[in-house]
């Protein structure tokens, strides 16, 4: 527990501006972030939001324009990459093409001036860890994408860094290999106890692998939390939309209590809703709210919290997405578990909609 809550990386007010004057571009804006020792931390966001830039700032390839950064309690602003106890798995692997797999893996230790025997022993251990023993003498060009990825991982792990930075290491792999490598990465992280900072724009990957994640957009961190928190309690529309499917509703607040609010639903019923952090709407305000499609059950008309009419249904194997129009015209989707005796709902069928208590979330802004 004490190990879990130690601070490995502390990023305070970091901003990064590329260019000057007219062409200045803010790639990072006021990033505040604490990454704990030994956790699997993920940066999630759309292309161009600044994920790689933030990793490069941590690795030392880029100096922050403003703010400060410390690793293991020591400020590293101004320190070159080769003196930071941080290793990177690059987006394109960047294996040295003229060296064998074993030479690639041993490179870091060799540069650190470790004795030859230690380099050889660690290289062997790493080869075993990523299950590449039989290919120690191949050149990177003779490896498949997944194998190259494992070598890149082993090379970065061999010097036992305090922190491993991984920049979309799985994005070039096909789905099957990707799934395998996801569990492999997770296993390696647990076995080595090294802090992983993982970058991805795949929300499913982020949810399944991370201890905590930060959702980024346009150079800012929008929300930080466990996968559970991010998925079930998104703080703003972008986060809710980026992670999984969701229903957006504009609702009127009818009453407030300590941690939540009562809102009026289309059709006149009311429901309890949770509030995103830092907001305090007053009764009478119209607020944006979300609820996940799997948090709503279909029931006979009039028996639920709202009523809707089916406009379409899409079959997904284990479940069906039923698209409806609510009584006030807003679109809505319900995910229904499939079972053999249930017919697909026909267009125009009226249904009642029952919301799982506590699943409705009011967003910021």
């Amino acid at each position, binding site marked *: 527990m004490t190990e879990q809550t130690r601070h490995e990386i502390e990023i305070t007010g970091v901003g990064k501006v590329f260019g000057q004057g007219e062409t200045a571009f803010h790639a990072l804006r006021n990033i505040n972030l604490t990454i704990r020792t030994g956790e699997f931390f993920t940066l999630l966001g759309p292309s161009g939001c600044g994920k790689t830039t933030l990793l490069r700032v941590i*690795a030392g*390839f880029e100096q922050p324009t403003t703010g400060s950064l410390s690793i293991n309690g020591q400020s590293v602003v101004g320190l*070159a*990459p*080769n*003196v930071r106890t*941080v*290793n*990177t798995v*690059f987006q*394109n692997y*960047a*294996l*040295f*093409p*003229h060296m064998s797999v074993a030479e690639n893996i041993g*490179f*870091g230790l060799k*540069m*650190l001036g470790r004795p030859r025997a230690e380099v050889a022993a660690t290289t062997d251990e790493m080869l075993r860890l990523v299950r590449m023993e039989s290919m120690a003498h191949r050149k990177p060009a003779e490896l498949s994408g997944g194998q190259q990825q494992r070598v890149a991982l082993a*090379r*970065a792990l061999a*010097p036992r860094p305090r922190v491993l930075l991984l920049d979309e290491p799985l994005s070039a792999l096909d789905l099957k290999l990707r799934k395998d490598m996801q569990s492999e990465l997770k296993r390696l992280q647990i076995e080595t106890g090294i802090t992983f900072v993982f970058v991805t724009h795949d929300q499913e990957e982020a949810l399944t692998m991370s201890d905590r994640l930060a959702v980024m957009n346009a150079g800012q961190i929008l929300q930080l939390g466990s996968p559970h928190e991010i998925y079930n309690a998104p703080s703003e529309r972008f986060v809710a939309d980026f992670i999984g499917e969701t229903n957006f509703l504009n609702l009127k607040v009818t009453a407030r209590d300590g941690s939540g609010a009562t809102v009026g639903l289309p059709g006149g019923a009311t429901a309890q809703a949770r509030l995103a952090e830092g907001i305090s709407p007053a009764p009478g305000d119209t607020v944006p709210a979300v609820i996940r499609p799997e948090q709503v059950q279909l029931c006979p008309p009039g028996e639920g919290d709202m009523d809707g009419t089916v406009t379409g249904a899409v079959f997904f194997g284990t479940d069906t997405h039923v698209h409806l129009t609510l009584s006030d015209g807003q679109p809505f989707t319900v995910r229904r578990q499939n079972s053999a005796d249930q017919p697909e709902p026909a267009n125009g069928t009226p249904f009642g909609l029952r919301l799982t208590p506590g699943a409705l979330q009011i967003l910021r802004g």
Partner: protein
Amino acid sequence: MVGRDFDVRRLPGFGLIAVLTVIMLYLPIVILVVFSFNAEQSQTQWGGFSLRWYEAALNNRQVVDVSLRSLWLALAAAAIATVLATMAALATTRVSRFPGQTMIYALINQPLMVPEIVTGIALLIFVAFLKVQTGYSGMGYLVVAHAAFCIPFAYLPIRARLETMDLTLERAAADLYATPLQTFRYVTLPLLVPGILAGFMLGFVVSLDTVVITEFVKSAGQDTLPTYMLGQLRRVVTPEMNAIATLFLALSLVIVTLFFMISRKRG
């Protein structure tokens, strides 16, 4: 690649121009080579096959002397030029952009832009001055002049290689605790070898070829193969000259072929 819809071979006159170009390029050389095997001392009358002119050339002390001088001069000049060109290429690609970068690029490529005869005359005046001032008139002048002249030829392939090299490799080395010097030694330099070899070969061939620079810089008794041949041509032209030229051509071909083979294999 270009699709089927556009094929230059279908343009009118394509075949004719191609044939004429090939004739212009190779016919004179073919004739030169053929007559190097002529049994008679004629450049127009074929008198049967013979190796007598090759025998004469190889038994000619002077030919052997100037050939050896050409070879070691080219080796020395290419070696110096390659080292300098490598440093220049690093200094123009592995730095953050600085004002005057294009200017430096132009300066390095001076020999490609200044007419050779102008460089030659400038060197003639300059070197003559130095010879008088220092009393030294050895091969040093030729080595330095050739090296300077070869730099851009060595520079271009090295720079091209550096520009296509993945910068993240050097970043990865730095990430794995390599100092800048170690990064150069273990990553940049090994990957640069094909470019360096290509640069060396080009520099070598250019030095071997150069007539104008040598002609203006050399002192008495410092003829290279090209200037020797030029001198001989002012007298009687026997097929011995064809034989020497053919051998010279063969040497150049071997070097260029080697260069292609090495760059294909390593590239």
